[in-house]
């Protein structure tokens, strides 16, 4: 049963990711990305990482997808079917990505992967918060600084100059 659930979620993720990169309309592309991210959060729930899954839905689907849709609607909405959405390097790009994927798959297949350790502890939310505030306090502060810099930079760049 658990294997079936994983296979279903993984298949959904791959199909939605494929539709994201191949959809012609950029708005459809953003919507497929939302579905893909929802499937990825399903993977996180499957791996007992509830907090990361919830944050994925909140930040990505609640925040970033909304931002993408705003950006798409503020720039030109191209309905014209004659305008190409892909550039000239589609064939070498597809070939390169496929070759890279086959290479990765060979390496993954030949590696003896660790079985799950019998006493591998499920990281609780309390433990996550504790280590975020103790062992990883410095990166946490740097992330907050980065977010502040991104916010100020976005306002400065996006401001209309009169």
């Amino acid at each position, binding site marked *: 049963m658990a*294997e079936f659930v*994983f296979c279903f979620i*993984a298949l959904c*993720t791959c199909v939605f*990711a*494929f539709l994201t*990169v191949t959809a012609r309309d*950029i708005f459809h*592309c*953003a919507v497929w990305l939302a579905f*893909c*991210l929802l499937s*990825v959060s399903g993977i996180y729930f499957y*791996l007992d*990482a509830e907090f*990361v899954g919830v944050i994925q839905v909140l*930040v990505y689907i609640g*925040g970033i997808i909304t931002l*993408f849709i705003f*950006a798409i609607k*503020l*720039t*030109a909405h*191209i309905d014209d079917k004659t305008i190409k*959405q*892909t*550039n000239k*390097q589609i064939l070498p*790009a*597809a070939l*390169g*990505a496929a070759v*890279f*994927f086959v290479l*990765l*798959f060979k390496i*993954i297949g030949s*590696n003896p*992967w*660790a*079985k*799950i*350790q019998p*006493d*591998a*502890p499920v*990281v609780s939310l309390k*433990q996550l918060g504790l*280590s*975020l505030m103790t062992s*990883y306090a410095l*990166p946490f502060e740097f*992330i907050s600084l*980065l977010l502040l*810099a*991104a*916010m100020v*930079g976005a306002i400065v*760049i*996006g401001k209309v100059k009169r």
Partner: protein
Amino acid sequence: MIPLGFFVALSAVLFCLGIYGVLVRRNVVGILISIELILNAANINLVAFNKYLGTPDGMGQIFALFVVAIAAAASVVGLVLVIAIYRNGKSIFADDYNLMKW
């Protein structure tokens, strides 16, 4: 139990699709969307290794959270740049951008 290799393979699929999207898309917003796919591939690996190799303090999950925050910051700045360039140059296609080329 699913072997760890399946999660790594899933993340490889997402990564390669993202690379393809970055290389092929003309629309800059499409390129940014593909970059989000690549970052999610990295996140799946972090969470899966955290579960299977069992770090007691949840290091993998915490770094996955950091990656989400950095992805948010990156896409905010990227989209604002796209909107600013669009306002000046009236194009959202990456192959029309030659402002900083010499």
